[in-house]
């Protein structure tokens, strides 16, 4: 089992290369088979994962550039485990629910390459390797948006590429600088996260490096001033692209904050917590308001994604077990829910070739099953109890309450605001009379669409009722993380702040 991570990374890539040989009519089936196998592999990983161990598991290391300390170093802990399972699951669902007709073969091959890079990001423990996978996600996504997208796809694809590329390159300088510091301190070249974690940095250095990493992560989250590429990319991307973008790619950077920024720069994290929380709050309120004003259903969901990413940011920078576990849980939850939402929009778009809310109305009459599915997904997105969205939002806000009750109160407006725009949209789409002639002939979902959406709904409810399966292993890792932060903090103020934030106890 020690090679399972390498298999998880490279199986889709190998399958993609072999996939060139397959005839284009049979490509979709091939994609389904490969992604199902990948999902089973990820379940195996979960099965063999020991939830009582807080550190990294399944660690594998191979020297790549030994003179400069770059290794192929992979491993998982409680945080990355579930994200990997989610990636494998969402890719599988996205491929099953695929309705695209144009260039399916290229699309499937691109998806498989994308899956490799996504898994790679979440298991890399060597910073250079992490950076390589992180940047490599750009090419497939650029192709997916740019080729299968809507009218403004070139602009959207290039904007997406340039925004994220800029941020990441600044992170690269940060990574290289950290490597240099590590070399100065120890005399050894290393880019391994495990080695770096043992190094305690002075406060001002932490600030600068935090900012360098922040540039890459904030652009991709996306945080408030850097968010303009996202609605455009979502609006123009095909359904499968939006699902992957929302479900997985946006999670890479909050994961980056948890994995790298918090333990490596604990004082800077405490120092910037207020600032980050403010950015999160701006995202929550401001983008929720924009979402309400959208006429395009997909743009609306894209803005609501930004809004929810704000809650995740709040959870992460609550800096305590509840907040961070909640944020990770919400990352998983939001991945599933927003994927489902985009798939629902895709269902409508396939039938009517439009995403404008005003074109629909009264759909509940002829699409009852779809209306039900959509309603459940919508509730999960709002954060109704007993759905997956509730647990994450509740825990994130609970964690943040400890930091500042007032800000947490403002943050909790997310539930109210998302209810406003989501329900308004739902009303205009599904209720009322079925007036438009074109809408009368729309068929209810069945077959592939029902399987894909149905399994998402089951998961949404199941994980909403019984979150313990995920939270247990998560807590072990996150508790360890907060302890590490407290030990590594150099300023006494930050030490005390961290101790104070973590005095509620753990969540079961």
């Amino acid at each position, binding site marked *: 089992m020690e090679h399972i991570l390498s298999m998880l990374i490279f199986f889709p890539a190998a399958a993609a290369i072999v996939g060139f040989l397959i005839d284009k009519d049979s490509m979709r089936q091939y994609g389904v088979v490969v992604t199902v196998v990948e999902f089973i592999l990820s379940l195996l990983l979960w099965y063999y994962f020991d939830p009582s161990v807080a550190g990294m598991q399944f660690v594998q290391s191979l020297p*790549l550039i030994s003179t*400069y300390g770059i290794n192929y170093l992979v491993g998982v802990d409680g945080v990355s485990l579930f994200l990997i399972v989610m990636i494998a699951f969402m890719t599988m669902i996205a491929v099953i629910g695929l309705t695209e007709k144009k260039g399916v073969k290229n699309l499937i091959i691109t998806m498989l390459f994308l899956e490799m890079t996504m898994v790679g990001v979440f298991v890399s423990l060597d910073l250079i390797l992490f950076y390589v996978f992180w940047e490599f996600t750009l090419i497939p996504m650029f*192709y997916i948006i740019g080729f299968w997208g809507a009218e403004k796809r070139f602009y959207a694809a290039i904007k997406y590429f340039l925004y994220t*590329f800029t941020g990441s*390159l600044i992170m690269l*300088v940060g990574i290289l600088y950290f490597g240099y510091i590590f070399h100065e301190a120890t005399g050894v070249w290393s880019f391994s996260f495990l080695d770096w974690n043992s190094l305690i940095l002075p406060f001002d250095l932490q600030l600068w490096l935090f900012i360098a990493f922040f540039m890459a992560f904030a652009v991709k989250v996306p945080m408030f001033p850097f968010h303009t590429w996202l609605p455009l990319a979502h609006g123009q991307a095909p359904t499968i692209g939006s699902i992957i973008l929302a479900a997985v790619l946006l999670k890479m950077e909050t994961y980056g904050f948890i994995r790298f920024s918090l333990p490596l720069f604990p004082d800077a994290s405490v120092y910037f917590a207020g600032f980050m929380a403010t950015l999160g709050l701006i995202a929550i309120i401001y983008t929720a308001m924009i979402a309400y004003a959208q006429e395009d259903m997909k743009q609306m969901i894209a803005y609501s994604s930004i809004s929810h990413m704000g809650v995740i940011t709040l959870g992460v920078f609550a800096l305590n077990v509840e907040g961070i576990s909640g944020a990770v849980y919400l990352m998983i939850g939001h991945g599933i829910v927003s994927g489902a939402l985009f798939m629902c929009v895709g269902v409508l778009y396939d039938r009517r070739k439009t995403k404008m809310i005003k074109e629909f109305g009264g759909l509940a009459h002829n699409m009852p099953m779809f209306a039900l599915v959509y309603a459940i997904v919508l509730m999960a997105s709002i954060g109704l109890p007993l759905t997956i969205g509730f647990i994450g939002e509740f825990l994130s806000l609970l964690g943040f309450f400890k930091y500042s009750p007032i800000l947490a109160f403002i943050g909790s407006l997310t539930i109210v605001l998302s209810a406003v725009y989501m329900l308004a949209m739902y009303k205009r789409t599904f209720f009322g009379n079925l007036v438009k002639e074109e809408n009368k002939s729309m068929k209810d979902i069945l077959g592939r669409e029902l399987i894909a959406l149905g399994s998402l709904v089951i998961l949404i409810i199941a994980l909403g009722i019984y979150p313990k399966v995920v939270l247990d292993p998560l807590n072990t890792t996150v508790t360890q993380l907060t302890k590490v932060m407290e030990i590594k903090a150099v300023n006494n103020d930050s030490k005390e702040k961290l101790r104070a934030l973590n005095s509620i106890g753990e969540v079961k």
Partner: protein
Amino acid sequence: MLEPINISLDSLNLGTIAPISIAIIGALGILLTDIFNKNKHKSLYVILVVLFLIFDLFTLLSFNGEPRGLFDLMLVDGIAVLSQCIIIGGSILFILLGLSKLRLQEFRYAEYFALYLFAVAGFQFMVSSDSLILIFVGLETSSLALYTLIAMHNRMVSIEAAVKYFTMGALAAAFFVFGSMIFYAITGTVELAQMAQVLTQDGFLSMENYSNYILVLVGFAFMFAAIGFKLSLFPYHVWVPDVYQGSTSALAGFISVVPKIAGFVVALRFFEIFIHANDIIIQTILYVTVILTMTIPNLIALQQKDIKRMLAYSSISNTGMAMAAIAIGTQQATNALFLYWILFTITNFGAFGMLWLNRGKEFKDYESPYTFVKFSGLAQISPFSASILALFLFALSGLPPFALFWGKMYLISSAVNSGHIALAIIMVLNSVIAAYYYLRPISYMFLRDVEQGANTEFMQNATTPTKSIVGFAVFLTIIAVLLIDPLLNIISTLVSNSGF
């Protein structure tokens, strides 16, 4: 009555010029073959060139004597060996592109291949000497050969390019001679090592020796301009796009890689004297030039509508990146320079090679076969060639995990490690600008449909040997990460041997 001069053959250390003489003998051999056999197929000459270059390479690798030879004119130290390897390797790759399908004018003449070998020999002389006179001879040999190579394509645009290149090159040569003259006047020697000694001993770079300081600066300015022309540094880069456009892609690729490494070695040997003297004016000039060389051509490249001109500007900008290594001046930076240039050779060879294979014969003089529009929808017609060209373009933009990323990363880290954080940031921002223009042809190839009524024939110039040699470059670009470690070991051994 003069004393008779006795020189033993041993003291000449002829091993130092053995590799170069093989290239020259090869060139003469090709000329002789042509005299006795008319109208032989070009493949004969291509393979002969490759053969002699391989022979050249092996002689070079087996050389292990005193670095000095031939009355101390030759200096075959670590970086000379290293850069000769890059020169020979690059030359082998680019001449193999000559095995293509189209029958072009220049390949009918055996002189083309002889001149090619003469050019290579010239570059080898340039890098393996620290005497300004021999460097000058090497520079002129290679440059004159290059001008002729370009003009032999026998179209108006090529002749124009050759004349432009010649005019600029002549000016640069004049600057070089003038600069050398001034330095000879000040220090009484034309050997760089002794020059450095005199300059530091007599304090020419300090305030005490003020009148000479100005002379040194003037000499430096002339030399800087001469090297700047050869390397296409910022204000002296204007000839590059026109020359590239006028020469065939195979030759343009050669010009973008091989002469520059020779130029870098000369720059390294020459600037090293001044960088370690911490002279504020000279350092500022270098620093500013490096930054402008990276940035300005990048900005111009954004406006291009032709892949070849775009690659011309991008190669100037890449030169700026590599020049940054010389400006930084640490040992890691020198390693980074060579690593960067080896990887750049592979990637640029791939990009220009793909253009060369896609050349058609239908286009007229002064028209380019490589406009972006012509490549619209290539991914639908020929997904394989589109992916390969895109791979090289992505690699050039420095996207991991392809070849050039590792070079860039090591270069940036050498900047970071020596405290030049601002320079590092400027480098990465330039990568972003570059990414935009590299993405444009990619978006034409992948994201657009085929133009109505466009000629959809691609790869007209491809044959199995040329395809496989480009395939080899693809292979190297993808597995680059495994090459870095051995390469770095070799580079750092050779570089530290020669004391840089």
